């Protein structure tokens, strides 16, 4: 089948070009993670992308779809890359394999492939392994302490492909959101928790800033539009500010919420996945605000330290409903569609 025969202006981008832009925008954050976590990040990337391409090719073959156009659209690369930076570095190969299986096979191809998935594939994969393997998923290596100067290639290979390193616990450290969750559950205040915090925690803020930079570049290039990141971060920051001002005991300050965990990655790279997001102007605001809302709720009162994945999946479910009720007013019609 042939596409449009209208003369396209130079501003038009193909699906592949859109995906390439997303990959470029992930580079600053990825480089920073590589600096912080060394080989572990690299092995995550290689394994995720490897499994992603393999499973994509397999599914395309099974579904009797042409390999070339769909492998070269870069969409599965984005899925793999997003999972690689979301999973704890030095993740064992089988964990990545299971995550990619859920992301590529279940979330994407069983629903019809590119463009047809109601749920964000990377987040389905992430949630599947988070629920199935909570121990592995919460054991994050400490930034700097697990980088190349501390863990060599051989140890990395053993950690990823063989039995976990005996001294592995020495390399791990609770993430800020994790520590907060545990601390609050023990009745500690935010100020005392912050006083105990290791200085390495600042690194998480830098990672978020790197994602923010990449995201702003995507905005500037017109790959994503402002409503989703603004509504997501606005709601998350707004709720955090509100509870901070009301001095609710388990409230972390708003900046903490915005620059910890996967906030920036979620706002600019995950919630903006066009396939699983709302498409109407008003719907996008509601959808993203919902993600911000559920992220705050789950982080504060839920069982998991971070919640971007769950919040995104919950709002993915709501997209058809949101879209059905938020069409824009069409030229020459009086108000909403009846």
């Amino acid at each position, binding site marked *: 089948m042939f596409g449009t025969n209208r003369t396209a202006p130079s501003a038009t981008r193909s699906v592949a070009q859109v995906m390439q832009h997303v990959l470029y925008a992930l580079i600053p954050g990825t480089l920073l993670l590589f600096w912080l976590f060394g080989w572990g990040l690299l092995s995550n990337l290689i394994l995720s992308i490897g499994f992603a391409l393999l499973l994509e090719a397999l599914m395309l073959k099974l579904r009797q779809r042409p390999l070339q156009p769909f492998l070269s659209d870069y969409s599965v690369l984005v899925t793999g890359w997003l999972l690689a930076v979301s999973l704890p570095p030095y993740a064992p190969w089988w964990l990545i394999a299971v995550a990619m299986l859920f992301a590529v096979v279940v979330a994407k191809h069983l629903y019809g492939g590119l463009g047809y998935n109601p749920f964000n594939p990377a987040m389905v994969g992430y949630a599947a392994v988070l629920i199935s393997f909570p121990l592995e998923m919460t054991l994050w290596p400490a930034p700097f302490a697990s980088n190349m100067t501390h863990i060599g290639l051989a140890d990395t290979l053993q950690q990823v492909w063989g039995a976990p390193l005996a001294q592995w616990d020495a390399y791990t450290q609770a993430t800020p959101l994790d520590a907060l969750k545990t601390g609050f559950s023990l009745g500690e205040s935010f100020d005392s928790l912050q006083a105990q915090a290791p200085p390495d925690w600042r690194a998480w803020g830098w990672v978020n800033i790197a994602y923010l930079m990449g995201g702003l570049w995507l905005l500037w290039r017109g790959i994503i539009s402002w409503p989703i990141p603004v509504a997501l971060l606005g709601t998350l920051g707004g709720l955090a500010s509100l509870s901070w001002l009301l001095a609710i005991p388990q409230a972390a300050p708003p900046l903490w919420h915005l620059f910890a965990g996967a906030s920036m990655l979620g706002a600019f790279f995950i919630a903006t996945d*066009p396939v699983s997001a709302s*498409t109407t102007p008003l719907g996008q605001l509601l959808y993203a605000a919902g993600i911000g809302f559920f992220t705050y709720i789950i982080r504060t009162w839920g069982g998991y330290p971070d919640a971007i994945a769950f919040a995104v999946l919950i709002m993915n479910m709501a997209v058809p409903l949101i879209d059905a009720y938020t069409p824009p007013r*069409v030229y020459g019609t009086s108000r909403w569609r009846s």
Partner: protein
Amino acid sequence: MNAPLKLWQNPGGLALPAHKETSTQQASRSLSAHQQAPLRIPLLQHAGLKAEAQVQAGEKVYKGQVLARSQGYTALPIHASTSGVITGIEQHPIPHPSGLTDDCLILEPDGDDDWGTQRLPAWPHYTEQNEESLRARIAEAGIVGLGGAVFPTAIKLNVRPEIPVSHLILNGAECEPYISCDDQLMQERAADIIVGAQIMLHILASHAPPSGQTCLVGIEDNKPAAIQAMQAAVKMSGDTRIQIISLPTRYPNGGERQLIHTLTGREVPSAGRPADIGVICHNVATARAIYRAVVLGEPLIDRYVTVTGPGVRHPQNFSVPFGLPISALIEQAGGYTDVAERLLMGGPMMGITLANANIPVVKATNCILLDRAFPQHTVMPCIRCGQCAQVCPASLLPQQLYWHARARDVEQAEKYHVMDCIECGCCEVVCPSHIPLVDYYRFAKDEIKAQREAQQKAAIARERYEMRQARLERLERERAEKLAKHKQALQDKAANKANTASDQNSDKNSKQDAIQAALERAKAKKAQQAQSKPTSPHKQDAS
């Protein structure tokens, strides 16, 4: 003079490279018909009823002579573009994407370009004419909307009395890339256009609201020479009702609905017409055609056509008599360049692809675009990126329409207002998956139209059937009533006869008894009938 008009911004749209300057570097050239023989003049060149040939093969015709006409509200006559001999009527390809053929008169020009006596009476003092006769003249001259829709202009000027017309809008926006025929026309024939506008204002004068009528001429600001020429012409005319408005250049601001919104802030209701909101909109070229028809008495037999694109050597505008083959225009423009791969009638956004250049120029031919080979993209699945919705000038959700049209769920597509799509193609141009979206919308629209027609037909058929049933029932009832009456009359007659017989023959006892018995029977029956009549009249009727 006039306070600056507030312009309203349209949603969506695209800033497209204009490519107009290449074809407006020189004055337009008139192509005479006799250089190229023969002319093929299609019998249907407008949106309406097809005309029937009024001339025979071998007949000598004069320029402007009516060659074909038919009766009907949407019918328009077809005129000879030049003098010559009709050599026949044949099926010939007409400008249509599928290479459709239709009846065309073949006119062999004699080279004299002679009007004979065929020119209509010139009305330089058109204000002496009334509304009806001016509209009749516009129809008789075969004038249609020259912006591309080719709808009969006289019908568009026939407005209902209940809604006053506050604005006459002349469309000189010409927002589609490459096309420059209106630009050049405004530069060269501004005074004609202004008189055309004045004629239309005269026709619409009786519909003016108490606040008066204005004529707004919208021209995109990438045509400064046209704006200047038009402003000068308005100044010369001294007509304060007419204002030239410079519009921001953005596709598709020249769409009728978009232009009306830009200039008035009013929106043409969905499924409605501009007249519903007191606006009448015509193309500038149509205005000039009206001037020529009314003031000069010349029917519509030629038009400005842009021949342009990277595929033609000397892009320029021509004044072309209808029926001339497109190939002649290309030849006059220096012929093809090496990159010529695609032939389009119209612009790159809304034009139709033509199979070859052996197709006549018709009233709808505003531009011949020779474009480069277009890279054929593989269609990828929709990734719901929503770029299409951002550029849609009608604020539709193009991808929802796409899903529903693709699923052949035309009901849903209608619910999402597919009928309000103006087919501008903006969504298609920005689609990263290169989906031919407008084709899907056209499919859905055609399906909806077919369904509506079928529904209408079914409704008419049902109505007819019901009326027939009612009529049959009525006839049957009347027949039964008549029969019953007749029967009653016979019975009464028999009873009377029996009565008189008994008086005369009292000795015939046995007979009398029998008669008496019969009489009593009849009476009893009569009583029974009288009793049952008011309660069940229908039963009685039917019996």
